[in-house]
């Protein structure tokens, strides 16, 4: 994959180094956003990065265009208002697994159902890292976290499938190891009119990696390489084998009319 040279225009270099730990995947995903924006040549004043709470919530500090921190889980509610009043603004919501799956789960479902013209990048690092590594709804079964010392007893939530079912126009998931897939998914999501969602499984060496004996940044990257399978291969596995892998790939790409377009049509009647 080539590098669009102007990706740096979308980054606020004076704010770097960022606060994320060595080997944390947040920066890889944020760079993916900058690369896609540069490739699509979207002007800075047409952009908004909306964030939630947690490690990923700091991303707004490192971009050179508009950004805001929403209250926990409610970022998409703010985005709904912004989308309706400023329809020309490209809204990218950079959220964590808590914001998407837990406290903000309902907002996520209904934003997807309404098919709002928003791109959500979910940084799924399988835990609440900013508060000390507690388990989240997306933490895989049996994982060790600071609130599941003997292994998590609950099954994980698959946010990508939920959003697809709710009605989003574009849904894909991948990891920070698979960067060409990642960068491509982000670009396709940004090109989608209507609700688009990219789940980025991301490394958290400080908590998830350490607690589960996966290791540091490079080891977590290796883990993503070995632990994830493309959707078609994953589907062929037996139910038992499926427990050992996580699927990645595109789930949905369709062209349902977005909320604002439908709304305007109705109003004219």
């Amino acid at each position, binding site marked *: *994959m*080539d*590098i669009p*040279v*102007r*990706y*740096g*225009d979308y*980054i606020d*270099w004076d704010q*770097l*180094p*960022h606060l*994320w*730990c*060595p*080997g*944390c*995947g*947040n*920066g*890889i995903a944020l*760079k*993916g956003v900058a*690369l896609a924006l540069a490739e699509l040549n979207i002007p800075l004043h047409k952009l908004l990065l909306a964030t939630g709470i947690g490690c990923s919530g700091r991303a707004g500090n490192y971009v050179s265009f508009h950004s805001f921190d929403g209250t926990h889980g409610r970022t998409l509610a703010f985005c709904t208002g912004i989308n309706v009043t400023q329809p020309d603004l490209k809204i990218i919501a950079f959220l964590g697994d808590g914001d998407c799956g837990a406290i903000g789960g309902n907002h996520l479902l209904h934003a997807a159902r309404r098919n709002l013209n928003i791109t959500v990048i979910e940084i799924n690092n399988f835990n609440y890292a900013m508060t000390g590594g507690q388990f989240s709804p997306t933490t895989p079964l049996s994982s060790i976290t600071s609130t599941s010392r003997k292994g998590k007893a609950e099954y994980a939530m698959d946010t990508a499938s939920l959003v697809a079912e709710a009605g989003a126009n574009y849904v894909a998931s991948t990891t*920070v*190891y698979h*960067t*060409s897939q*990642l*960068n491509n998914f982000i670009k396709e999501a940004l090109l989608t009119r209507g609700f688009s969602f990219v789940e980025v499984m991301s490394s958290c*060496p400080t908590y998830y990696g350490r607690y589960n004996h996966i290791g*540091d*940044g*490079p080891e977590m*990257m*290796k883990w993503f390489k070995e632990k994830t399978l493309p959707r078609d291969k994953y589907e062929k596995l037996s139910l038992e084998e499926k427990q050992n892998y996580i699927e990645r790939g595109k789930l949905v790409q369709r062209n349902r009319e977005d909320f604002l377009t439908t709304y305007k049509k109705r109003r004219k009647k």
Partner: protein
Amino acid sequence: MEKKKGKFPFIIEERLCKKCGICVSHCPAKVFTAGPGNEPRVTNPRKCTGCNLCFFRCPDFAIQLEVSP
């Protein structure tokens, strides 16, 4: 950007590098070796295949294009 085989096309900005080791461990051509403080050193630039993976996977924006944009 045009791909040049056999030439490492990046600079590593020390100020930003957190010495995570991802570039060192995951370069398919083994262009880097880790220094005593785990800092990446470009010791085999001529082996670079121009895949750009180190650039994409550096979480800290430390690996940058030589000609800054």
